[in-house]
Each structure stands twice: as C-alpha cells, then as structure tokens.
C-alpha cells in the first residue's frame, strides 16, 4: 500500500529530489515573471547530491551550505513554505525575511545556513563537528562546497584542521562544472578536487553526482567513519546544473551548443532514479505520480502563501543585531 511504500528510503529520496526539482523549476518561472527579489541560485540538476548525502544523515546532524543552498535545506528537512516566504523576503520566512535565498538557515533542522561567500560555510561545519566532539555526541557535520569554493583557502585550511583535530565532518564538493561562468577545465585545471583531500590525509572519493544511490552509499561510508571516530572524509561529486549561475543575470552563453539539452535528456538525476525505482520494483508509476501530485501541491501552496504573506515589520530592521538584553 502507498502508506507503507512511501516510507521506503529510496522513495523518500525520490520525494526529496522531486521537491527540490519542482521548487527550483517554479522559482525559475516566478523569477522570470518578476515575482522574486534578489539573487537566486538554482540547484536543479544536482538534486542527487543533496538528497543522497542527507539520506545518510540523522535529524540532529549538521549541514553547512552554499549560495546554491535550496536543495540542501529541503533535503535536511526545512519547511518548504517557510523557505519560499524567506526567498520572497516575507515575514514568516524561515529567517523572518532577513536572510533571503543566500542565507536560509534552520538550526532546529541542523541547517547551519546557506552562505553568500564561496567556502564561507566550510569552516563553520568544521566548528559544528568540533562542538559535537567536545559535547560528546555522535553528531556528524557536512560541509557542502562548490567547485569554485574548493579553490578557496578556507576550504584547504578546513581540510587540514579537520584532519589534525580528527573532526567528524564530511566535505562534499559539488563540482557542477562552473564557478559562475568560468569552467573547471580552467579553474581546476581540469582536475578533480579529491586528490587535495588525499594530500592532507582525508579519505576522498570521486562520486557520480547524477546517481543518488551512489552518493548516498558514499556518504553513508563517510558518515559512519565520522561517527565512529575515524575523522573527516571528502566526496567529490560531479553533477552539472540545469540553470545558470544566477537567475536573471546569466544567459549561459558560456555553455556549449546543446549542452543543457543533453544534460536534461541524458544526465537527469531524477529521471535516472525514477527509472531505477520502476525497474527494480521499489515503486510503481502510480505511486510516484502520487508523490508528484503531493509535491506539486506543496510547492504551489508555498508560492501562494509567499505571494500573500505580509512584509516584515519595519521595526525588524533593528532587531537581532545583538541578542536581546
């Protein structure tokens, strides 16, 4: 029955991926229609990474995210409506409208925040891992970083610190091929990031970021290592994005002719996972269609809520600079 099947972990992963996909495709449309303020960086195409990694985490584990953070937040269990309100800058947003797309955080869900600075969140994740270690919990912390952010000193330093402090942290590089409009063939010299982890003693693997089960299994191994006191790991996940760096600004002229079409037709992680679920009998098409309908309704309701939500009270301008006395 659907009730029992819907709890199958790989169908839960499907739901997460579908939610991210619909959320991002809808935001793309809403942004184009002029309904979304600010800078919005969409995650569509990379869903397998967030969904696969977070499927290997417990509720109280931590993730530190990037500017392209909607997928991580959804996969970590953040409320989709509260996220949509936040992206619209509305009261009732997960950060009261004071963070926006690039600063979605929900500490109750272990979501330490998207981040406006490339690799800015990586040291924070190492710190959350230190916190878990000192407090004596078995929590694990994940640091997501893009291929561009992987060139930052903060990332290299965090690898070293996590190794020598033996922190329960998993570095997840999301190599989507581009740092804004600059390709990895140039900015990584066409190389993987994984050897940089190995160079400082952090076990590192290259992972097919279009295959959510491969990501989940690699993450599970890294998380188990972290939880059992084995210290940090690095996953170098490869999956290109469907959209440009940023909505509105990026017409993607730097991408090859037909590149995005081929990506969508041949390397759609959601289609790949769907085919596998159907082929191995884990799910039936009607069941997935039911998930799709629920997700569509969820995201539609979130957009409707965001459109009608009130703006923040002007007094909010001056609150939360410091803790209230």
């Amino acid at each position: 029955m659907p009730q029992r099947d819907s709890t199958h972990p790989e169908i839960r992963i499907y739901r997460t991926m579908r939610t991210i996909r619909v959320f991002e495709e809808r935001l793309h449309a809403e942004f184009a229609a002029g309904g979304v303020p600010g800078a919005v960086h969409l995650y569509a195409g990379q869903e397998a990474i967030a969904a696969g990694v977070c499927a290997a985490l417990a509720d109280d584990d931590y993730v530190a995210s990037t500017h392209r953070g909607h997928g991580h937040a959804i996969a970590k269990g953040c409320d989709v409506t509260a996220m949509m309100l936040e992206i619209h800058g509305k009261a009732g947003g997960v950060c009261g409208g004071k963070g926006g797309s690039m600063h979605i955080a929900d500490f109750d869900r272990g979501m330490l925040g998207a981040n406006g600075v490339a690799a800015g969140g990586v040291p924070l994740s190492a710190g959350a891992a230190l916190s878990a270690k000192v407090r004596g919990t078995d929590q694990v912390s994940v640091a997501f970083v893009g291929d561009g952010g992987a060139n930052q000193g903060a990332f290299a330093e965090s690898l070293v610190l996590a190794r020598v402090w033996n922190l329960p942290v998993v570095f997840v590089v999301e190599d989507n091929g581009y740092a804004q409009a600059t390709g990895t063939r140039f900015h990584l010299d066409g190389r993987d990031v994984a050897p940089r982890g190995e160079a400082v003693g952090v076990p590192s693997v290259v992972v097919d970021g279009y295959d959510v089960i491969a990501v989940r299994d690699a993450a599970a191994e890294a998380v188990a290592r972290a939880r059992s006191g084995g210290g940090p790991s690095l996953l170098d996940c490869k999956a290109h994005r469907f959209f440009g760096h940023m909505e509105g600004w990026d017409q993607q002229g730097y991408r090859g002719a037909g590149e995005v079409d081929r990506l969508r037709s041949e390397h759609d992680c959601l289609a790949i996972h769907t085919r596998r679920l159907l082929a191995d009998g884990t799910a039936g098409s009607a069941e997935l269609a039911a998930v799709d309908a629920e997700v569509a309704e969820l995201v539609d309701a979130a957009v409707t809520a965001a459109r009608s939500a009130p703006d923040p009270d002007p007094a909010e301008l001056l609150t939360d600079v410091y803790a209230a006395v």
Partner: protein
Amino acid sequence: MTRVLTYLQAIGEALAQQMGLDPTVVVFGEDNIGGTGCDGTLGHAWGPTQGLHERFPDRVFDTPITEAAFVGAAVGAAATGLRPVADLLFVDFAGVAFDQVLNQAAKLRYMAAGRAGAPLVLRAMWGAGLRRGAQHSQALYPVFAHIPGLKVVLPSSPADAKGLMAAAIQDPDPVVFFEHKMLYFSRGEVPEEPYVTPLGQAAVVRPGTDCTIVALGRMVQVAQEAAAELAGTGVECEIVDPRTISPLDTETIYASVRRTGHLVVVDEANPRCGAASDIAGLVAQHAFDALRGPVRTVTAPHAPTPFSPVLEDAYAPSAGQVVAAVRATVPYAEQERAS
C-alpha cells in the same frame, strides 16, 4: 580578596575560572598549549593560555596555522553549543580570517532573525611599542567596531582585563578582545574570585573639572601621565576609559563633557574613520551645547607602524602630545571667562 597580578595573568585567570564554571568553554589557537606534535614536553604557550591545558586537557587545543578555518570553526562551534575562545595571536592576522569575522560571526544572528548566534571570543594582541613592525603592531579595533553584530573590548588594566574577559565569554554575541602587548606585564590589584565587568560601561578613572580626556587601551596610562603633569599647572583632567568601544558608553562620555566643557580623545589607532573621530563626532552631535572649546584628538598618524625604535616611539600618542592638546582647548574657557 585582591592580589597584584599582571594583565597577562589576569586574562589567564579569567580563562581558567570561566572554563571551570562552564564546561562548554573551549580555548584554541596557535601554540595555545605549545608543543603539540613535538618530541619535548607540552606547555610552551606564549601568553595567557599558559598552563590551561593541564587543568582542562580536553578543552584546550593547538591549531595549525589556519586562521580562516579555526576562526570559522569557532563560529560554527559557538552556533552549536560551545563558547569558544579563539586566539588570533596578533590582530594583524585577522586579514587572513576576516570573512569568518565580518560575514559569518557578525551576521549570523541577524540573518537567522535571532534564531542562532555566535557566542565566541576572538583574542587579538595589538598595539605599538614592541619593535614588531607594520604587520604586528596595528590598532585595528575601529575596523571591527564598524561592523554591526560584533562587540569590541579594549581593557586597559589587569582588573578590567579579567572582568571583561569573563563578560566576553559569557556574552551571547561575538566579542573581539584586544590585548595590548605593552600592557601584558603591567600590574594591578585584581580580585581573586570570578567577577564580570559589564560590556558597555565606561570607567571614570580620574575625576577632574577642567577637561575630559577619553583614552583607549594603553592610552589610559598616557592620559594619566598627562593629567598628572597638567594638575601641576592647575588644569584638572577627568579621564574616561570606555573599556569597550562597541558597545560604547556614550552617556558617561557626555556626562563628563557636560561637567568639564572640554574634550580631548586619545587613541592609538590611525586617525581616519577611527575611534577618536567617532567619539569626537558623537560628542559634537549630542553634547555640543556643553562644549566651551574645540574638540581635540590625539592619535597615531595616518601611516603604518614603523620598525626603527626612534620612529616607533614617535608613532603612538605621547603624554606630551596630550598635554598640548588639552592646553589647546582649555584656554578657550579662560578666554570666555576673561571676556
């Protein structure tokens, strides 16, 4: 009960006492233990963390030279239940970790609408006088005080250093704690028991009637020398030590200016967009009616800190410059009285 301690010992005592009171306080930085990874003995810290690892072996850590990572780790640890005290060594090294201070620590609470915070202390040695040259001698507190979300502490005495460190550790927000390297071996009475000196409360360290001198950090000593000299010529200065420049206790400054009618601000930082010009500007906006002469500031020049002892000694404000500044503003009152 009080004893005489050095400024350095007072900070160390605050760290030890707060670690004893709160098991979430952790301390780390380069050589905060000293000797990790070596064949000899542990315990070769330079500074206030000396010996802490013996009492708290699970909560004091050496770090690799990774300021961006370990300052950021302090933010992440603070946001998830610890109270880290991270050590930059020289404040000049903040440059390599500034994103973590400016964009992460300072803004976390605001961006999360108050649902998260970063209760950390960033220790930072500062100031001219030790012949360390331009990259180890700066007075960078105005840079930090400019950033909403940070608190900036600047103790001038051993007793304040202890109480302010305790307050900084207990504070729910990120605090940058400036330790003047030339004050480390200054001595003063320090109560033995734990206590807190609240952030945002200035101290009137010398009462006077003729001119207010607001002095920051080591400049409190310089102002004391100047005030003693001026007292010999019948000019009584009131010295206000803000102790923290963010938050800044403006009311104590305004109240003093209302008593004296004159203001000289003495600040070791560079002059442009600095602490002295900020305090002068605030007084001009909020206590202009009380002023009976022009506000004077005495600061380091708009130049890096030089190495040569002769040049460095001419860099930070001297008592002579403070005396001259006071004499340049107080005569306006005498002229007023005479007319």
